[in-house]
């Protein structure tokens, strides 16, 4: 177990690859027992999507662009959601994950108010499935009940399972192993998402992060964090969209 504590999970999202197809969204619903988002749930703004694709418009017809950006829990190193929880139901663990403990949560929703990324979701209802659809539920993930918060966990159940099975079979679970990677990463058809261990210098995410962040703010470096000025120290690194018509403009 010792080596598993030295890991620090992170993700790199290449927006230049993302097509906004929503493959990650459906994969996440399937893996994490997220209740079916019915029409009324959307209308009440109470739909749950641990990962979502945000679509932004720039310009107007005919010079119009749509931009896509996948947003999931940023697993902040300095998370605004954590200090506000009165019952320590959300905290930072040694693997860099911002953990939501369902059985501790009492549903104050302070954390959702604190989160600048809007990635925390409250269960306003007891989740319901028709009897037969329950056959699909993933036994590795808790079915959340009414009155508690939930959010992207970087598919911690996959991390746990693959690590344990690796220890059992005495094999090292490599970064990029599909049993370890979150469901969204495995699904993404354009490989816009990369997941791995930031503490392992030879992992793909580490190298991507280093390359992306080395020249931050300069032309060569495409890396940035969402709402970085808030000091959240997010563990999700975004790579800027390349747009030849964007001229010399790049961010702040």
């Amino acid at each position, binding site marked *: 177990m010792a080596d598993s504590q030295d890991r620090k999970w992170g993700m790199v999202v290449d927006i230049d690859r993302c097509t906004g197809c*929503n493959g990650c969204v459906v994969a996440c619903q399937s893996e994490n027992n997220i209740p079916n988002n019915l029409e009324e749930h959307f209308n009440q703004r109470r739909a749950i999507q641990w990962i979502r694709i945000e679509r932004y418009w720039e310009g107007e017809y005919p010079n119009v662009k749509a*931009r896509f950006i996948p947003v999931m829990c940023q697993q902040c190193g300095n998370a605004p959601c954590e200090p506000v929880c009165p019952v320590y139901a959300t905290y930072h663990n040694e693997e860099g994950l911002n953990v939501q403990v369902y059985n501790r949560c009492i549903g104050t929703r302070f954390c959702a108010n604190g989160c600048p990324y809007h990635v925390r979701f409250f269960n306003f209802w007891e989740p319901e499935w028709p009897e037969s659809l329950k056959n699909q539920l993933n036994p590795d993930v808790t079915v959340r009940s009414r009155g508690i918060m939930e959010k992207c966990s970087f598919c911690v159940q996959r991390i746990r399972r693959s690590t344990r099975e690796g220890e059992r079979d005495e094999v090292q679970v490599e970064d990029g192993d599909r049993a370890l990677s979150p469901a969204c990463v495995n699904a993404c058809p354009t490989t816009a998402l990369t997941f791995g261990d930031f503490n392992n210098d030879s992992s793909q995410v580490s190298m991507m992060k280093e390359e992306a962040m080395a020249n931050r703010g300069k*032309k060569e470096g495409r890396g940035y964090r969402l709402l970085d000025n808030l000091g959240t120290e997010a563990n999700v690194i975004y790579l800027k969209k390349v747009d030849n018509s964007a001229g010399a*403009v790049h961010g702040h």
Partner: protein
Amino acid sequence: MALNRRQFLTLMGGSAGAAVFFQACGIPEKELLIDSPIEMPEDLVTGIDNWYATSCRQCDTAEGIVVRVMEGRAKKIEGNVDYPINVGKHSPRCEAGVQGLYHPDRISSPLVRTGPRGSGEYREISWEDAIGRLTNELQNLEASGDQSQAVLVTNPIGGHLGLVADKFADVFGARRFTYEPLETSVVRKALSDVFGQNSMPDFDIDNSDYLLSFGADFLSTWASPTRYSRGYGEFRQGHDHRGKLVHIDSRFSTTAANADEWIRVNPGTEGLFALAVIQSIVSKGHISDSVVNALTGGDSGWLSTYSPENVSEEIGVTPETILHVGEDFSHSNHALAIGGGSAAAHSNGYASVKAIFSLNHVADNVGKKGGVILNPDSPIGGLEAAPSGNSFAEFQRLTEDMQSGTVKVLMVRGADLFYGLPDTSGFKGRSANVPMIVSFGGMMDDTTSMADLILPEHHYLEDWGTDIPLAGVGYELVGFQQPVVRPFFEDRGDNLGTKGFGDVLLALAQVMQMDLGLNADTFKEVIRESARELYALGRGSINAPTFEAFWNGVLQRGGWWDVNAKGPSSAEPDRLDGISSPVITGSGEFNLMPFASASLLDGRNASLPWMQAMPDPISTATWQTWVEMNHKVAEERGIKEGDVVTVSASGRSITALAMPNPATPPDAVSIPFGQGHRDGGRYSAGRGGNLMAILDAVHDETTGALAWAANKVSVTPTGEWVRVPKFENTVPDFPRDEHNHVIELTSEDTH
């Protein structure tokens, strides 16, 4: 003990309260039981997950998937890392397969109609009875020599299932139709003429550096989106040089959104654009004479009619735009052109698509890196990829036959004719003259709910199958589909529950003593016997000493392929013809630009809640039918988001929710296909509008396919307002100023 009323009420209240109160302390009874099954097969062992490889049937392209099975239940679908088409990735639609498998509204036994058609009144019967009833009808036709009055309509099916269905229809003498709502026949025919091949070639987007796409939403719904998306990722950031994507389309689609440049053209002029590009390149002499001769038939004079200057006005762009594209295209090392979708859905569709794909001959990229990779023939004789559907014109003739009473038995599988055929075909009314409609649907849809007899088929995760890909990967590939779970309705016994379509056809043939020439009693055996042919080839991805080991290997890896068995490396260009102006019907002020929904496609996935809840990439709307229109036009007309509007085309209309956006051209509106099912389970029935139904009967001149993008419509507000179900908020997502982008951008063209 005597109680007065007051005491009685007090006690009742108290005990009811206590009952409610202490109920909470209990644990549901079922959680306190553990089952000890009779035998424990490997996949039933508690807590162990097995991943089985099979093929996905959510879209036209059968992607290789692996299904996580725990305790005999399918839990999760992921891409099969070995499978050449999708290499571990999958489309957003694949994962919802498990919801189809466990859908609460699946039909669990054969049904016979007891009420009037469409009333939904059915009675369960046994399979023996059901097959008896159908064979009875068929034998009556046989006795009178009218076998051709039986019609078998399926969705496009290839592989062994297609083979069995074709043989069944052929040996019996029934008429065989293939139905697809958004026809691929135009693209398929154009491709076969341009590249001399029946199957679709592979497009090496990965290594292309200049990709010109026309109308085809290849990143979302067109042909093999996962394969193309995989290529797109590499095209963007996989090399030192970032590729450039130029999308020419009358609608702002997902592909347009991801393009470096979206060139909006008038509907139906995509082909003209392509021809003008060819003309500009030919006139500059950036092309070999032999190709010019082949493309123009020796005399390139006629091509000048289509010079950028001559056609730019009709297309709706400046001549410079066309010349600029021509320059870039001819000067790129690995230029590639693909097209289809709405470009093919016009009266000039065939000629347009042909011109578009001929650009690849101009770029001389056939069989080359970053170009068009041709596919070899199927490694198993007689086994083909799914054919393209019969054209709309042929279906119109079928409805005329129905009218005249020469269709006695209509057998339908996977083809929702009542939903998908436009009202102008008169299919719904004329179906009353068909004495017997038989559906093989495993769930109610608009057609199955009109059937007299329902023989429910397995879900694809419970059934066998094979697949020769519609759009292959440039080498021989056979996908294998195996049951990953036992049939869900297995416990209803042999005589109830569901059965595979292939097995039912074989059973029908057996009862009627027809010889299909397949030497097998079950569909699985049919596939297994064929696999022996693959084994006998002695090459490919599975190397095994015995056939048994080979068979296991094929099922384990989800298919068989041979990377060395490639297709031809070149193709002769076919002569191009001029392109006529598109026929646009209707008197409305907007061009209607329909599109396949990213999740529901043509409506086939509408029953699945994950698909309904998946936001559309462009509008982000869910669960509804919406109309995309230009936000300024909407403002002028006082239409705001969520206003219920009536969209009418030539007298037929649907209602939908207005969704103004800044990307829709002012002269156009866009509506997705996929909603408006009368039946189809609790998640889709009666939801949204069926756009398919209101389309005019415009045909592609060459193939007779339905030109579904050739309508003009009017849009009238009804005065009602409904909140559009979507995840995002209602604040418009415009950047605050021109230099402050909402997501961060770089102009740097580096890796």
